[in-house]
């Protein structure tokens, strides 16, 4: 069993600031969380210059393509699935477990609900269909973590590998389903049947054209915000949250204080997968209404840096995710304008992660907060963090 390293360990909301710190606490938090993003944007700008593009107009395009006119609505809608994935990752990362199989969980859940949705809609009232589909998505997403969870809980098999493998299997299985039982043969490209517009998530009143389904901002963002708040509450105010945190700080300690470690691991996995499944439901029922073969938005990879920048805090992650939503919606437009593949955004995400770890290191050196743990917990786990 490997004891995964510090960056993933949890951060309770309340932390006693070290007395030696010479910089005021809010500024410190700002530097350590926004700094890496700025550095990455600057480095990305230099890269753009090297590629012969104008970075200022590129970032300007991101702003105009992600916020101006009605683009902000797309950004808000993009925020919803990202936020749900982020809270799913936060939940399990707090327990120091790595669920890296989000792509498989997301696509399988999306495919299953898109496959059964239209048929279900004929038999049930719309509101009931939506609820059933949300539940199904959560169940599918959760179940897809079961094998890695059991292997980890029983034999301590490294979950990084198993979740990644299950992810690849899930992506292929989704394609098998789309090109097999769920295929809508009236279309030229393989895809699932399409949900009728009036069976999809309704819009928030006041956005879009009144009484025209499919315009405006769907209520997914409200669902996502509510779920995120609930996750934050569970993680910071309930015994389950504390248990996860103890498990994340030190698994042996968790066993010694009498926690049922295998059951905790499995519960954390199932909940994390279920949240990823909900993200798929919001995206499919809110925006697409169908899933096309070989579609993979890879939301999870993009969310990971922000989960860490937010210090595994489900509230703090909201602005980060909103920022990335603008970046990705505007990025589509900006990369197209600059004649670059949209994969350029991956470079930015990777750079943010790298700069984050470096900032972390510098921060640790300057004692801007040596640890994410509370002082009490840090004592309890044997000063492991005091590097």
């Amino acid at each position, binding site marked *: 069993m490997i004891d*995964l390293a510090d960056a993933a360990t949890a951060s309770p909301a309340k932390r006693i600031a070290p007395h030696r710190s010479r910089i005021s606490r809010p500024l410190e938090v700002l530097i350590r969380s926004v700094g890496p993003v700025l550095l990455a944007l600057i480095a990305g700008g230099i890269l753009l210059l090297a590629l012969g593009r104008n970075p200022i107009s590129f970032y300007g395009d991101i702003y105009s393509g992600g916020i101006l006119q009605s683009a902000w609505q797309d950004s808000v809608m993009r925020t919803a699935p990202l936020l749900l994935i982020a809270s799913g990752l936060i939940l399990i990362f707090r327990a120091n477990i790595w669920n890296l199989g989000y792509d498989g969980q997301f696509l399988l859940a999306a495919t299953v609900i898109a496959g059964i949705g239209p048929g279900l809609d004929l038999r049930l009232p719309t509101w009931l269909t939506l609820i059933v589909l949300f539940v199904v998505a959560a169940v599918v997403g959760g179940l897809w973590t079961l094998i890695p969870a059991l292997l980890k809980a029983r034999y301590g098999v490294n979950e990084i*590998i198993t979740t990644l*493998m299950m992810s690849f299997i899930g992506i*292929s299985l989704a394609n*098998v389903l789309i090109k097999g039982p769920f295929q809508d043969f009236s279309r030229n490209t393989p895809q699932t049947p399409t949900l009728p517009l009036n069976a999809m998530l309704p819009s928030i009143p006041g956005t879009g054209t009144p009484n025209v389904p499919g315009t405006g901002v769907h209520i997914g963002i409200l669902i996502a915000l509510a779920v995120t708040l609930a996750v934050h509450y569970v993680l910071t105010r309930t015994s389950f949250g504390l248990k996860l945190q103890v498990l994340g700080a030190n698994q042996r300690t968790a066993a010694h204080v009498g926690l049922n470690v295998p059951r905790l691991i499995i519960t954390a996995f199932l909940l994390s997968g279920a949240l990823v499944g909900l993200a798929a439901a919001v995206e499919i029922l809110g925006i697409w209404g169908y899933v096309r073969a070989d579609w993979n938005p890879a939301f999870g990879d993009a969310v990971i*840096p922000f989960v860490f920048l937010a210090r595994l805090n489900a509230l703090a992650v909201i602005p980060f995710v909103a920022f990335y939503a603008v970046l990705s919606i505007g990025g589509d437009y900006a990369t197209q304008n600059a004649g670059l593949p949209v994969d350029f955004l991956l*470079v930015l995400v*990777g750079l943010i992660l*790298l700069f984050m*770890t470096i900032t972390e290191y510098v921060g640790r050196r300057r004692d801007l907060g040596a640890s994410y743990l509370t002082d009490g917990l840090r004592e309890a786990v044997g000063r492991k963090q005091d590097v």
Partner: protein
Amino acid sequence: MNELLQSAVLTALLSGGLAAAIPLMFVGLGEQIAERAGVLNIGIEGMMLFGAYWGFVAAYYGNSIWLGFLAGMAGGAALSLIMVLLCIRLGLDQIVVGIAITVASEGVTSVLYYAQLGSTRPRLGAAPTIAIPLLSSIPILGSSVFTQPLAVYLGIVLVMVLGWVFRSTNIGLNIHAAGEKPAALDAAGVSVVATRSWSELAAGALFGLGGAYLSVVTAGVFVRFMTHGEGYIGLVLAMLARGRPVWVLIGAVLFGLSLALQDTLQLARVTIPSDLIFMLPYVVVMLTLVIFARRSYLPPALALPYVRGQR
């Protein structure tokens, strides 16, 4: 199916399987070195892609597969320098940095390919092969197994050399100690950081070589995200092989065969959805992990930075 087709299919399966196995073998060997020294490479996929891109570019413009291999090794090693600097020297989180390397490398290679070769989409010709005398005249095996590019033979030599290094040299012992009990290595007067750094550099070069082999020889073309999880299969190979390079080779061949099954079945006109076959290698990995759950082994100091005097 008539006999001629049958032997053609078998030949295609074996040669395709080996062609797919060689990149896996290089990557698995690299990760074996790094893992044994206590470094976990989640960025393996990114380093492989980087090697694949630079290897392809060098082989294309330099007109030599050897130049391609060299460039691939340099590319992989260059990316592994990030791991050396951030994770081994500064002790930052290996998993987060690994994810960063993979994601950034996916983006960089895709953008560079698009900018540089996207309009022409060049292909490379088949790599020259060397047939082993006598053995190469065996019916099916001869043309598939015993006629290979020189790099394959060198790779098999590398397996033996690595086995020898691990088993009976001081370097091998140092690497082992760096992953098992770094404090003991430190007490013996050998630098843990240096041991791990050199191991990681060697591993990075091998990841790059694996990627370069994939793009230059196996595929003959660079495609964005072309490694498609093969780096992670290499990770599993190293995990299951427990410090025995021969098992990396055996495992790589097994996974290579399951990767090659896709093209072969198409050749044999067997209609199975290609996605189902695409799943196969990963299912094999999962099955192996489920069956050998207790056998997979990771060094106790894996992914933990070494800090002198820390318990």
